[in-house]
């Protein structure tokens, strides 16, 4: 038997996190693909132990500079479940608004500067800007207003500081919210134009029989709550997450790999999963637009995630606009509390919310003094890793058969990984791609 050969593509840019991909070929076929995550474990769960539960949203937010709201949301919902806290309709609505801001800033940048360049052979968003200056300017404006929303509601754009268990430290004024309305009126239409632009891209012909997984809520597009559903018929409350999903250690990664517990199969999270499973609950404009651009009803092409992400950009702008208008016109009652009070008590709770990249699960146990006994955090990229490896294997197998060069396949690998908008370790730097093949 021949020994494996190693091919290395040293750097993949425009993904979040430091990692690598090793592709091992033997006798002309791909034998194994490993998504190597070599950033040291960050041990946030251990850091939380013994600390007051009130510290949790701000500490877990530090896991990621791009999706801090997701970590805040999953943590406060899980802790409120443990404490038996019921939040008010106003707080619930403002949390969705905050999440809209995060989706907007994350999606707008990924679409325009990180992902779109792949469809034009551009090395970066900066290079793409020369060819599509108006589109890139529009993308930067779209992102900016997401940041503005986070600043107004969260106190600052990165690592907002207004979120607390039970609600917010302060509620925004009606004037603050009203000042954003013109920007969000523009944003809805601008996001529509972005969606039309990306829907016209040329997509590689690659479809897989994925199991898509996301939250699902009967009345709204999933963000802060809902049951966990899948395209293979799963429908469970979040409290049953562990009965159906499990994390595993793998030797080549410092991040755990999540798989379906019984089948040991990978699954697919993120905008494509959410749109596929919740299309009828997109905002009216986003729903009409999905039909207009002929977005497949059950899209199984990961490269078309950019369309799903754009549809969610429209949704987030439109939902945010509706909340802003409502809040600016009626606002909260002067007597309305910014947060719901609670008494610490022994207990445990879990929650899942939809981060820009997919379902983010948190679980905490607290003691009678309100200290964290244990915590568990399962981010979306950890759950997508196995699926990414499977995708790279299948896609590059086809490209090998089609006679693609190694250089082309290395680029293909990077492009495919980027469709997931991975947040490796919830941070990013570079992904190194390493090939192994018989010499």
């Amino acid at each position, binding site marked *: 038997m021949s020994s494996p050969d190693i091919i290395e593509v040293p750097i993949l*840019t425009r993904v979040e996190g430091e990692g690598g991909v090793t592709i091992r070929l033997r006798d002309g076929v791909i034998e194994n693909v490993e998504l190597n995550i070599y950033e040291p474990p960050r041990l946030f769960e251990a850091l939380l132990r013994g600390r007051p539960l009130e510290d949790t949203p701000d500490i877990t937010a530090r896991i990621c500079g791009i999706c801090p709201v997701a970590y805040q949301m999953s943590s406060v919902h899980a802790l409120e479940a443990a404490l038996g806290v019921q939040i008010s309709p106003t707080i619930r609505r403002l949390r969705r608004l905050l999440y809209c801001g995060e989706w907007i800033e994350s999606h707008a*940048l990924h679409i325009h500067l990180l992902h779109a360049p792949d469809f034009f052979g551009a090395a970066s*968003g*900066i*290079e793409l800007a020369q060819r599509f200056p108006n589109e*890139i300017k529009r993308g930067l404006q779209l992102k900016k207003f997401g940041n503005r929303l986070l600043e107004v509601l969260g106190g600052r*754009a990165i690592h907002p500081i207004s979120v607390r268990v039970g609600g917010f430290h302060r509620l925004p004024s009606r004037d603050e919210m009203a000042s954003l309305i013109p920007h969000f009126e523009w944003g809805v239409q601008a996001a529509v134009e972005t969606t039309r632009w990306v829907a016209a891209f040329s997509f590689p012909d690659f479809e897989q029989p994925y199991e898509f997984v996301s939250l699902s809520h009967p009345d709204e597009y999933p963000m802060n709550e809902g049951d966990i559903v899948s395209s293979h018929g799963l429908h469970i409350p979040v409290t049953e997450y562990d009965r159906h999903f499990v994390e595993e250690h793998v030797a080549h990664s410092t991040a755990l790999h999540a798989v379906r517990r019984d089948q040991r199969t990978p699954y697919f999270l993120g905008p494509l999963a959410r749109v596929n499973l919740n299309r009828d609950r997109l905002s009216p404009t986003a729903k009409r637009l999905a039909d207009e651009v002929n977005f497949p009803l059950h899209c199984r092409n990961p490269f078309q995630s950019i369309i799903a992400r754009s549809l969610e950009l429209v949704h987030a702008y439109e939902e945010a606009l509706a909340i802003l208008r409502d809040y600016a016109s009626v606002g909260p009652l002067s007597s309305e509390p910014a947060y719901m009070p609670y008494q610490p008590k022994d207990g445990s709770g879990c929650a899942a919310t939809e981060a820009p990249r997919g379902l983010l699960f948190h679980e905490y146990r607290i003691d009678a003094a309100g200290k964290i006994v244990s915590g568990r955090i399962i981010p979306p990229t950890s759950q997508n890793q196995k699926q990414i490896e499977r995708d790279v294997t299948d896609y590059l197998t086809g490209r090998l058969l089609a006679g693609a060069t190694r250089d082309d396949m290395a680029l293909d690998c990077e492009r495919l990984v980027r469709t997931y908008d991975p947040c490796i370790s919830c941070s990013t*730097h570079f992904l190194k791609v390493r090939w192994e093949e018989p010499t």
Partner: protein
Amino acid sequence: MTWPLIVGLGSHHGDDQAGWLVLDRLRERGYPATRLARLQHPADLLDVIDAESSVMICDACVGGDSPGTIRSLCWPTDKMVYQRPAGSHDLSLAEVMELGQRLGSLPERVQIWTVQTVSWSAGSKPSLEVQSAAARVAETIWKDHQRA
């Protein structure tokens, strides 16, 4: 008299206020407030600049110099060496300048003043070295403008 746009990049954290301190001093000297832009994120630069107006940028920096050291760079002729941002969703000043150039939003040359920093503790006051250096940068900008 044409007043160049002076951009101060910074945050509330320690010496990262260097760029903002330059603006404060210029405002005290009588520089028009409408030509002073206090920004937090380099990407915000694209909101305030245009290709027709001259612009100067004042920013804190981390390097091998002693605290309070002032350097003046001219973009794009002087190479800016920026540490890679913590994530791909951050845009460094160098990336924003390049993006602005591609978008046709930047003047041909941009002067950048940097002040070597000491402390970045959250919410802390700027160090004396940086306060002094920021004042010197402001005085230089002010006097250069008066001579022009």
